[in-house]
């Protein structure tokens, strides 16, 4: 899902619940159960393949004959194939599981570089001329927070928590004032 689709989905979900109230934004769980089941199955098949490699010698299929019976050759060949394919499948499922566990939501991706930082070397020669000192911008804090959190996910996550904390403190203050009024 691209960044635009992610933003559209988040906006659509917010409107569906509440147009202006803050909401707790959580990410969907990554589907890891399927690769885990495949990983376990591949490991078990590898163990069966190893047992097939050992079976002709453990059960003595030859029974004193001069030549090796065909069943031993079939067991060795099939056991080797099962062991090889099982180990390969284990590696593939393990890689898939590792990639899924390391996946993050798009909002947590690396922030884009600042356009001011990109144009900074070009502005160095112009510093020889005296320039007026720039006035402090009131929106600087908002801009700096947007740089570290381009999708606004952290802000969306913290806003309801702060609102709940403020409501809790306000309720405690109200109850404290009332109890003091009753005592006096």
């Amino acid at each position, binding site marked *: *899902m691209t960044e635009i*689709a*992610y933003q559209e989905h*988040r906006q659509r*979900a917010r409107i569906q*619940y509440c147009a202006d109230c*803050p*909401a*707790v*934004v*959580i*990410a*969907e769980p*990554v*589907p890891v*159960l*399927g*690769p885990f*089941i*495949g990983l376990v*199955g*591949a490991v078990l*098949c590898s163990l*069966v*393949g190893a*047992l*097939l490699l050992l079976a002709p010698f453990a*059960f003595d*299929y*030859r*029974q004193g*004959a001069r*030549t*090796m*019976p*065909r*069943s*031993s050759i*079939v067991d060795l060949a*099939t056991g080797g*194939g*099962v062991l090889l*394919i*099982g180990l*390969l*499948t284990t590696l*593939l*499922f393990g*890689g*898939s599981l590792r*990639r*899924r566990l390391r*996946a993050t*939501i*798009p909002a947590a991706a690396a922030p884009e570089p600042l356009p001011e930082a990109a144009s900074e070397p070009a502005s160095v020669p112009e510093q020889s001329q005296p320039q007026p000192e720039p006035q402090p911008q009131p929106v600087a804090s908002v801009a700096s927070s947007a740089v570290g959190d381009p999708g606004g996910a952290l802000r969306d996550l913290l806003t*309801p928590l702060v609102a*709940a904390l403020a409501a809790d403190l306000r309720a*405690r203050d*109200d*109850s404290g004032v009332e109890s003091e009024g009753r005592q006096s």
Partner: protein
Amino acid sequence: MSFDPHSPTEPIPVVTVAIRRPNPPIAALLGLGLLASAGAWLMAAPFVLGDHGPGGDQRRGAAWTDATRVDVSLGAAVLAISVAALLGYLAAAITWLARYRQAE
């Protein structure tokens, strides 16, 4: 008015953010299919190839030898494990899609 910390409050709406759907491990699933085929072959091999050679080979109509028992049991185990893993992966994927991708 007194503050009751256990009083029911208005629930905070929870919005689930969609993640990028991971690509299915096609090669690993093909590996499971190959393992299922190997298990089926292992079950059939004593009866397909058994009428030749000395020693522990399976004769037609005779009692099962040790090699035949081992081949059939281990082939059934490989087949059952790989088919169960394939069905488990399919069930997990369908469950995840039904839970989080209803709108698509």
